[in-house]
């Protein structure tokens, strides 16, 4: 099968084009370095199946960071039949250097000048015919986001695939030493084919930045935006979640109970009280998750993440991190796993390890489900959003404290140089795609972990069969009381202890297993929790849930990214110790104050 590789600098729209070509669902965002892995998809081109590979962006072929090495190794080991080089037309002045480097490798190349719509707005005119003639390469203008120029580009790609695949130049390194030649060649081509206005007209980006990056208002605005976003998610999402939960329990009463009526009691118990209650309670959170990621997609695509990096870098530097680390913490709000992988853009290993040590404290969307459920059950509608926001602040605080404590162990002199892209708005299609990716991700986790988790919890709370389900005589009751000395000082009872043990696998299971443990779902479960716990216990439970290990996938990612078992165990131990200590201090002081 012929193979096409998408190559270009970071944030030039390779993944957006990849999604357009393959109908795939690569994650896109206005942040240099959002793609750090190889992604591939197959399509039919000119009657043949062709494999398309989306590569991480590279600044040049000398790059030293992990994501750039991925690309170098890929090119070295598998010469693509066609390199589809994607350049940001607006920044053609500097991005052409990468094209000229790639050209020296003698690959079969088609060049796409992407974001041509944006370039036109900037008043940049590019004579692609002239450029094509001077470089001896096929060059096309394209808007990957809106699709203009796409058909011509695909035709050119199909045609270029008919040429034989060239061999890779043996001496990759020495080929790359000829940068001086590149310099003069670049000037020559640009002078004849590109016109850039001398004075850039003032753009929306400049006007917005004057407010968003204001020396004194910038940070308050940042926290204001965050607060409004989370408030919005809670206010819009919580009723949706309640509605879905109600519909699912109605379905149980209306149809499912009759359907399993003939089955033996243990089986109907397992199916309804175990699997259905557990999974339905978790499934009720799908609308909140979708809503959350729609907001997240807007923030990521807008280009605001780079602004957040600019605003926070001075503070992050005092913790031994940099602005990019802060952005990874924000991305961790979605899911910690891609945030951990996003640290591949860092070259210094110490800085990567320190950043990866703090990312798991980021309050991810799975933990958000637990907190939405518990805050809604235990706090008044006025207080609940504030309580939720306070947990986000604790999430930052845990990260800051950890970085401050360990920065001397992970010292680095990594330079901080980052592109600031213009503000962009995601298309509706991009946002819906993102929502769909997250639903799919959730469903795959649901089938892998959540069903197995709730079945196990059901078994633990119903065995041995002589014991009353959910009582102290069951296996769950025994485990709970064995761990009581550890969890009692932080106000966590036996039932919650079992939920925490399963939460180690994935946080979605926490709520699902509470549903199974109490044998209730939806409003009834909230009611039972509200009766059994007071707010101090509930908050202590949430603090512990926030800080201790996020999930097995995160641990597996930490291990594969760090390639160091001792480091992985250390992060695990530290998060458990910190979780217990924080909850202990909170619980005991709240009680001492008379709450």
């Amino acid at each position, binding site marked *: 099968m012929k193979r096409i590789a998408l190559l270009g600098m970071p944030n030039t729209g390779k993944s957006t084009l990849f999604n357009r070509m393959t109908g795939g669902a690569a994650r896109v965002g206005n942040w240099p370095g959002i793609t750090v892995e190889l992604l591939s998809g197959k399509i039919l081109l000119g009657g043949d199946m062709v494999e398309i590979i989306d590569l991480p962006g590279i600044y040049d072929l000398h790059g030293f960071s992990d994501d750039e090495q991925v690309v170098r190794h890929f090119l070295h080991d598998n010469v693509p039949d066609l390199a589809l080089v994607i350049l940001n037309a607006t920044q053609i002045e500097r991005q052409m250097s990468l094209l000229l480097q790639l050209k020296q490798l003698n690959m079969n190349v088609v060049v796409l000048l992407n974001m041509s719509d944006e370039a036109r707005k900037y008043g940049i005119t590019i004579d692609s015919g002239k450029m094509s003639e001077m470089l001896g390469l096929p060059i096309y203008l394209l808007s990957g986001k809106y699709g203009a120029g796409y058909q011509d580009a695909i035709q050119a790609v199909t045609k270029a695939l008919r040429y034989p695949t060239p061999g890779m130049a043996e001496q990759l390194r020495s080929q790359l030493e000829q940068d001086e030649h590149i310099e003069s060649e670049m000037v020559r081509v640009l002078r004849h084919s590109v016109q850039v206005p001398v004075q850039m007209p003032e753009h929306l980006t400049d006007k917005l930045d004057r407010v968003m990056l204001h020396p004194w208002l910038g940070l308050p605005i940042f926290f204001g935006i965050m607060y409004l976003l989370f408030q919005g998610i809670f206010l819009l999402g919580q009723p949706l979640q309640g509605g879905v939960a109600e519909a699912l329990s109605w379905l149980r009463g209306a149809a499912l109970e009759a359907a399993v009526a003939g089955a033996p009691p243990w089986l109907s118990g397992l199916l309804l009280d175990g699997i259905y209650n557990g999974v339905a309670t978790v499934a009720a959170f799908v609308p909140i998750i979708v809503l959350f990621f729609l907001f997240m997609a807007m923030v990521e695509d807008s280009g605001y993440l780079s602004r957040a990096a600019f605003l926070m870098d*001075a503070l992050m530097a005092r913790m031994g991190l940099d602005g990019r680390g802060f952005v990874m913490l924000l991305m961790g709000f979605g899911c910690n796993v891609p945030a951990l992988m996003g640290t591949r853009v860092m070259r210094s290993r110490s800085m990567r390890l320190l950043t990866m040590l703090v990312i798991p404290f980021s309050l991810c969307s799975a933990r958000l489900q637990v907190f939405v459920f518990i805050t809604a059950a235990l706090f008044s509608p006025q207080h609940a959003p504030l309580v939720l926001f306070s947990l986000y602040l604790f999430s930052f605080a845990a990260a800051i404290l950890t970085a401050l404590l360990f920065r001397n162990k992970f010292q680095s002199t990594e330079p901080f140089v980052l592109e600031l892209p213009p503000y962009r708005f995601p298309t509706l299609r991009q946002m819906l795609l993102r929502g769909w990716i997250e639903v799919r991700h959730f469903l795959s986790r649901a089938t892998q972990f959540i069903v197995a988790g709730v079945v196990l919890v059901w078994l633990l709370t119903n065995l041995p069969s002589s014991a009353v389900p959910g009582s102290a005589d069951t296996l769950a009751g025994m485990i709970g009381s064995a761990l009581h000395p550890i969890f009692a000082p932080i106000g966590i009872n036996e039932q919650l202890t079992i939920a925490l043990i399963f939460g180690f696998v994935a946080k979605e299971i926490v709520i699902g297993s509470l549903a199974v443990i109490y044998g209730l779902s939806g409003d009834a479960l909230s009611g039972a929790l509200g009766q059994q716990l007071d707010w101090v216990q509930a908050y202590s439970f949430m603090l512990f849930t926030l800080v201790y290990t996020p999930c097995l996938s995160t641990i597996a990612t930490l291990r594969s990214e760090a390639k160091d078992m001792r480091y992985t165990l250390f992060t695990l131990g530290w998060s458990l110790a910190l979780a217990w200590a924080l909850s202990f201090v909170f619980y005991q002081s709240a009680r001492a104050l008379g709450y």
Partner: protein
Amino acid sequence: MSASTLATLKQGDLATIVAIHADQALHQRLLALGFRKGKQIELVRQAVFSGPLQVRLGTTDVVLRRNEASKIEVCKGAGCA
């Protein structure tokens, strides 16, 4: 015109890059972002608490720390190199 660096510029200053004194890895990255000898550069803004600088080279905006900026030698004004 005395030799100064990007880190000594003030907000709104226009300058021209004279030389880049960085190690190879950083030098490569700066080149790829458009930092080249003779190029015009503008200091757009500085973050508070001695935070990073935002500079503009043509159509590219770049954020970098003062420490990195001090490795880029410039002369004030357009086309002075």
